[in-house]
């Protein structure tokens, strides 16, 4: 069995809204392994984003155990969680979240600045080639299409050599054809680079292209499918 990069057991995330307790996530067990694509499906408010926020150490669970690389992250302070995230997790957001004043290359290199690493032009070029944007290196985000911007965001997530790519609704702002091309890119990255990919989506057809599709409802896993058979795990 492949190594689990992230494991969550009995994950709960409760919020207080006035006098009411909102159970955004209510006892979820999940594990993400190297080289697999896991999609999280479910309607709005089902807990998809909450789950990936917990799994990517952006938020802390109210209850439950979370292991990253086999080590528990329970009780870690925010600055310690940053250290866990650095180098392990890469992020892709629905809104692309590119800095508008930076060129494609500068956006891609941004995480290196926070990691205190020097830029490596060759590596940046290679990653841009991987995502199919070699000819857009010096363009600004406003000069790109939605699909191209999302590819820049993926390149940015890849630059720090993460072990898992976390993508929250990466196709949410894209048309079907462009969304499909992003899913194809994910599949290629998983196969060629052994990258684990955790993504949320509203679109079941994209979700079922993953190795594993988890369906959430009211903060609980109601279904877990292996669309391509048992070989995925």
């Amino acid at each position, binding site marked *: 069995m492949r190594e689990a990069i992230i494991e969550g057991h009995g994950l709960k995330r409760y919020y207080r809204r006035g006098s009411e307790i909102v159970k955004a996530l209510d006892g979820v067990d999940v594990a993400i392994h190297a080289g697999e694509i896991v999609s999280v499906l479910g309607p709005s408010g089902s807990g998809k984003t909450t789950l990936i926020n917990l799994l990517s150490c952006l938020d802390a669970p109210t209850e439950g155990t979370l292991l990253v690389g086999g080590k528990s992250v329970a009780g870690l302070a925010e600055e310690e969680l940053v250290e866990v*995230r650095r*180098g392990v997790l890469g992020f892709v957001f629905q809104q692309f979240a590119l800095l508008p*004043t930076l060129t494609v290359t500068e956006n891609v290199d*941004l995480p290196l600045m*926070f990691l205190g690493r020097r830029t490596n032009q060759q590596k940046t070029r290679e990653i841009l080639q991987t995502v199919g944007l070699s000819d857009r290196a010096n363009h600004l985000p406003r000069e790109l299409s939605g699909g191209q911007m999302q590819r820049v965001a993926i390149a940015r997530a890849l630059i720090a050599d993460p072990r898992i790519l976390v993508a929250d609704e990466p196709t949410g702002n894209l048309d079907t054809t462009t969304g499909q091309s992003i899913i194809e890119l994910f599949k290629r990255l998983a196969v060629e680079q052994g990258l684990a990919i955790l993504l949320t989506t509203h679109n079941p057809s994209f979700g079922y292209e993953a190795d594993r599709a988890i369906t959430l409802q009211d903060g609980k896993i109601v279904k877990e499918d292996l669309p391509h058979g048992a070989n995925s795990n």
Partner: protein
Amino acid sequence: MTDKMRTDLNVFGRYMTLSVKNLRRRPVRTGLTVAGVALAVTVAVSLGGFMLGYRGAIDKSINMLGFQVMIMAKGCPYEAATMMLKGGTGLLYLPADTYDKVKSDPEIETITPIFIGVAQKQGSSIRDDGGGSNFSIISGIDVASYRVMKPWIVFKTGAGYQGGRWFRAGSQDEVVMGFEAAEYEQRKVGDAFYASITPAGKPDPVMHQFKVVGVLDRTGTQDDGTVFLPIDVAREYFGRPDQLTILGVKLKQFNAFKMREFETRWLKLPEVQVVGLQQVKNTLVSLVGTAQTMIAAVAAIAVIVALIGVINTILMSVYERTSEIGIMKALGARRGDIFQLIWLETVMICLTGGIAGSVAAIVGSGLVERAIKAIADLGVSGSVVDITPAVIGYAVLGAVTLGFFGGLYPAWRASSMRPVEAIGRGA
């Protein structure tokens, strides 16, 4: 340079680039904030330049008098000193024999008697003053002792000024003109100069025609605006043959103790006061000090307003970029990284404002000088605004310090954001 240092420099350079690009996203807002800082710095630099320049001008004016002590008729010593420095009216006189009494003092190195009077330039000027100054400061001097007191005085040379010299002994109709007096009247060597002098006790002025026998080179002092006559001639024309205005004294040893001794010796003379020019200098500085304090208060308010503007701008920028900051944290930024980024933006605004304000102060210094001189009679001639590299350095350093402290709160706010909330708030 080690590899680690090169990496750190590379990373810092990228932080700088990102900060600059962030500021350029809102050029109008950034520009206005920079302008606010620049305005405060302009005021501060101009004030600093004025404080420095005014002290320098007083020092120069007093040092160029050539003497350290003045003996004059009792009255307001500072008014008399101001008159000596810049020229003026309301003169008091002391008996001429005071000179004979004082000159024998063993502590005196040099002494020179000066008689000052004010003459009307009626009918002499080729200019139509249109309400401007129609008076000339006439200074009656003893050339021999005056030259010893002011060895730096030389005659202007060049076309129209050749052969400049002091008046001949016994000459009744020769004048030497200071640089500005000659320029203003457009007189050269050999030209005629007319002055209308009202002798003391007489109702009507008497017109005198003089020949300009020399024009002095610029000294940057009150001498530039003065017309010189032999002391006996001046006293005669002003109808005060037995009077003097000032005795300028240079002591062999000048210190507070010797000054006190000298003062005690000669205060015994009736109607005489002894004034040390250091004392005059201090008083002039303190008189303007009040005005300077007020201007400093205005500058301080400008600085506070600029600081509030800077904090407000950066806070707005942080608020607008909440989601972006959350994403940067998700991408691996620590609190310190976000703090550094926001803090750099603040410092850059203040640094740019500091440089722009300093340049504005340098460019506008002439205007400031004219404005100050138009508003107040400072009692000195020459430039009173002196913007030195040190003043600029302190101003820019002050602006950066402003940014250093002004950036703390917005940077702290930004760095304290929890990524999951920041990303969610921007969505």
